[in-house]
């Protein structure tokens, strides 16, 4: 079932390059020069000429080997990095489950952190008030609401972070392998939450190496190889292409 309607994500001719070596020298001139005139020997294109559209309600899985630009693509859609060529436009907000614990401040209490992170993602105070108990319940840390964040166990940290971001009312959800954390029971809870969000009509953008996760949520697959979008179509086919290009090595 392919949802119809106007696209919520539109990625058009997108390319982005990174420096090969992070310590490379960079001159002030580069900073001001027009991007097309720059000559940068030590750079490579992480993504090149990627175009696709996503309609509301679609669930998309991104497959490809490590270093083929999957996470970069996700970050571009989240608009936390900007492309060098082409445009990315996302209609409405995005709930990025990327580095979810990043916004939390060690010295502040869980309560303050929930208000801060949800607020940074555009929720008003009244909206957070309304959902606060729900968020804490979901994370199962009711006893630690006023504990400084730094004193939580790492499992709790991820739980509260997921609880906050997954309660954002944004129409697009981006997931980058975060589900690999937490114990089994909580992971299952996260999965169910994502399914609920999908049932709500949200759009999902999932990066994963786990075929089971991909087939559980997604119908459409994007297969990235060498920084290019080599296949865009039904997920099963994307996985097949991926599998035949890079056959799993027999374990030695």
């Amino acid at each position, binding site marked *: 079932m392919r949802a119809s309607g106007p696209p919520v994500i539109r990625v058009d001719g997108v390319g*982005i390059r*990174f*420096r090969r070596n*992070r310590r490379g020298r*960079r001159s002030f001139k580069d*900073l*001001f020069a027009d991007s097309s005139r720059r000559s940068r020997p030590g750079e490579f294109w992480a993504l090149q000429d990627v175009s696709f559209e996503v309609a*509301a*309600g679609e669930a998309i899985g991104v497959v490809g080997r490590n270093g083929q630009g999957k996470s970069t693509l996700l*970050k571009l859609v*989240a*608009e*936390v*990095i*900007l492309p*060098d060529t082409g445009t990315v436009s996302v209609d409405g907000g*995005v709930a*990025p489950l*990327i*580095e*979810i*614990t*990043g*916004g939390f*401040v060690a*010295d*502040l209490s869980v309560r*303050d952190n929930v208000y*801060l992170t949800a*607020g*940074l*993602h*555009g929720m*008003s105070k009244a*909206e957070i008030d309304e959902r606060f108990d729900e968020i804490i319940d979901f994370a199962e840390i009711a006893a630690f609401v006023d504990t400084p964040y730094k004193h939580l166990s790492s499992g709790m940290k991820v739980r509260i972070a997921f609880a906050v971001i997954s309660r954002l*009312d944004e*129409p697009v959800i981006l997931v980058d392998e975060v589900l690999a954390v937490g114990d089994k029971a909580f992971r299952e809870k996260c999965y169910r939450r994502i399914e609920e969000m999908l049932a*709500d*009509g*949200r759009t999902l953008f999932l990066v994963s190496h786990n075929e089971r996760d991909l087939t559980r949520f997604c119908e459409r697959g994007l297969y990235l190889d060498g920084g290019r979008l080599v296949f865009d179509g039904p997920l099963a086919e994307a996985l097949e292409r991926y599998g035949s290009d890079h056959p799993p090595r027999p374990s030695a």
Partner: protein
Amino acid sequence: MSTALAERPRRSSSARYRQTLWLLTSRDLRVRYSTSALGYVWSILDPLVMAGIYYFVFQVVFHRSVGADPYIVFLLSGLLPWMWFNGAVSDSTRAFIREAKLVRSTKIPRTIWVFRLVGSKGIEFALSLPVLALFALLGQAELHWQVVFFPLAMVLQTVLVAGVGLIVAPLVVFFRDLERATKLALRFLFYASPIIYSTADLPESLHVLASFNPLSGIFGLYRAAFFPDQLDLLEVLVGAGMCVLLLGVGLAVFRSSERAVLKEI
């Protein structure tokens, strides 16, 4: 099917900008005040101790011939705004680096990372003003009508600090040395600005040069509340021009480097 999603009213982007700016500004203050037992006292203790030192050195030891009486009021009226400038500029060297994780995971307008520092340091400055008032009372400094320039000085300083922060913050990401260079420049600027002295005490030949330091005009405006003769129109006009110029340069630098900054952190 997406009724639940559609209900939520979309606030205007400027309202969101302000909300986010305030969130991060108040977070900075909350972190500062919740992690130290003395909290607020620290934001006034620092300028007080410094003022005490300079007072001792220049009033008691050197029998100064610069500035104006009462000297402690003269000192504080330059030192407190300097703390704002110094604090915001030196913190802006780490504006992105310290918040790298958050910058990488939220798409709020990037200028907020700098402006929140301008805001939180500015609020600390405002909170430290009672100290100035107290010493003005104790020293029986006369308050003149020129106190109306105080808000103007704050506006100019906001523009200045924002401009410098916008230049420094992104460039430090590429040139880490700039962090130390900035610290050094700030130390130099402390003595190059009329804080412990007044621009009127400078030799004639340096007057024009001093007016190109926007802090000269700004401190003059602050001080005019107690020392109307500290107000120099040339300094204020040139200083205001410099503030606007720096903000323009800052916005340009920030805009052109934003893309690269996001890749780098």
